[in-house]
């Protein structure tokens, strides 16, 4: 039996979230063969090393290879119904874009100096990853299930687009709680009371996501800690 692992750039890109595709030879040709040639069945695996199709005969041309790749991706998509979550978030909720860092490119970057030298790729990664954190927050913010609400209440029901969350005013002394609170303390208060969910640990991925989204939505608002 033979096992191929498909690492064609197009497939890896689709599976791992990048939009870029690069030219490659026949899709099957870039697969990794393992084991010895045996008549009958050949296994071809996706780069996740899990998704597998079995073939009786190896494809001979590009079209045949593409068919194998498509079959693998179809299978992978079926197993990962949430993989379009970013598109779904973008369709439904507006997340403010992160800062544009293109200014660090070009002027001021001296030729021959490697330290502190940035490429367009760096800038793209910063923006994409920052925005993704905020988008994940938007998803949690709008989902009573993700928040663990026992009464099907989510944050957006009082705070559409995270309005009136004023993260720029923390830390501040909250009389009702008798202490200085951070944004996450107020998030937890809301979780316990109006949302009727369990409070989250400070490093809970959902808490981090909520903070990311709420802060992102207040882009350009000056910090004013202690404001009531």
């Amino acid at each position, binding site marked *: 039996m033979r096992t191929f692992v498909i690492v064609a750039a197009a497939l890896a890109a689709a599976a791992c979230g990048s939009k870029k595709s690069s030219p490659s030879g026949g899709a099957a040709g870039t697969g990794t063969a393992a084991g010895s040639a045996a008549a009958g069945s050949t296994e071809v695996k996706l780069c996740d090393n899990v998704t597998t199709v079995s073939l009786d005969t190896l494809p001979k041309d590009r079209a045949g290879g593409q068919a194998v790749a498509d079959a693998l991706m179809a299978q992978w998509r079926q197993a990962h119904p949430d993989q379009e979550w970013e598109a779904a978030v973008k369709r439904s909720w507006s997340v403010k874009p992160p800062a544009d860092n293109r200014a660090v490119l070009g002027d001021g970057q001296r030729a021959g100096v490697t330290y502190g030298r940035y490429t367009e790729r760096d800038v793209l990664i910063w923006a994409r990853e920052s925005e993704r954190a905020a988008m994940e927050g938007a998803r949690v913010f709008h989902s009573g299930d993700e928040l663990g609400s026992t009464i*099907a209440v989510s944050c957006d029901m009082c705070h*559409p687009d995270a309005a009136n969350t004023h993260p720029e005013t923390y830390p501040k002394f909250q009389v009702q709680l008798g202490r200085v609170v951070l944004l996450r303390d107020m998030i937890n208060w809301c979780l*316990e009371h109006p949302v009727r969910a*369990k409070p989250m640990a400070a490093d809970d991925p959902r808490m981090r996501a909520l903070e990311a989204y709420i802060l992102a939505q207040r882009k350009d608002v000056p910090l004013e800690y202690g404001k009531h």
Partner: protein
Amino acid sequence: MARRYTPVETRYYEERERALRALSGLSRRSFLKVAAAAAGGAALAGGVSPHSFLPVRVAHADDPKGFRFAYISDSHLYDRKTNDRFVNALLRAVDDVNRMDPQPDFVLYGGDLAQLGQPGELALGAQILKELKAPVKMMVGEHDWYLDLGEVWRDLFGAPQYSFDHKGVHFVTLMSVVEKDFWTARKLSPMDRMKTVAGLDNGAQSPFEVGAEGRAWLAADLAKVAKTTPLVVFSHSPLYKLYKKWNFWTDDADEVQALLRPFQKVTVIHGHTHQLLSNRIGNIHFHGMLSTAWPWPYAPEGLPELTIQMDRPDPFNPQDGCGDGSFVVNEAGLVDALYALWNRNPVTVSSSYLAGKRGVAPPRTTRAGY
């Protein structure tokens, strides 16, 4: 951490219960005394000292030549097992209205009775509204509609657009939350469609409109009415363009306003915005209604100049920013709005204030939204 506080809502209901029990059996005179004492922060007889519930008696000036109707709006009910909070809030509003003395001529229900348009949610709402002593006029909201496109709602409450005459005033109820089909192309299930519409900040839906059919119906209905007859229009969405992103908006508002403009006295009363909201465009007065479920923040842009914001709701004060209210149609055929904010002093927005005459302006905001 979970056990450190009694939920504020529980605490609130306990206090309210105690206060109401203490109040029952008091004469009207002693009630007023008690109310004054409570408002002044003094302890109630029997050691009850509510700090979140002040019995406020709303002074209803009875205009012998006018009449009054009450409203309850935007209750967003889940079934009782899922969420008792919104159910309790609607029960509180029904209590409020049933305690009005004299009783209002009728009660307008302003739409969004259900949260996700489920038959159980609508039936529960219908059952609770049956407790009202005064007759109920129903209006539909988007949360009632987009699971089955109004099938259950129509069964329970009839056609969403209708008109009636009352004491010389022509009333029209519109279906203003028609959305262009965004679901078929994306192959959304009815529940996905409902959940999309149910998100105020969900941009994957279409703007609200009355629609060509609705406008034709309205034109035909108004053709029979004299231009001097006072006109009151109920619509779930504001019949003007405030903030599109949250559908504080009616896409064909200009066309609808054009149909209303020939009438000398026109008032539009809308739900959906869950806040004190006032506007006038030409001779058309607009009043928003409070929700019983939760208050919305004010839109970040487009707020009408005439709107005096209600104070920023305090999250530690349960049901703050929520409430119900009533409208007085005065002798002149214009409408004064009374916002019976729970836990706060009531606010009146008079027609003379909206008309720019020397009416008393509502109190200024002391703590606006962020």
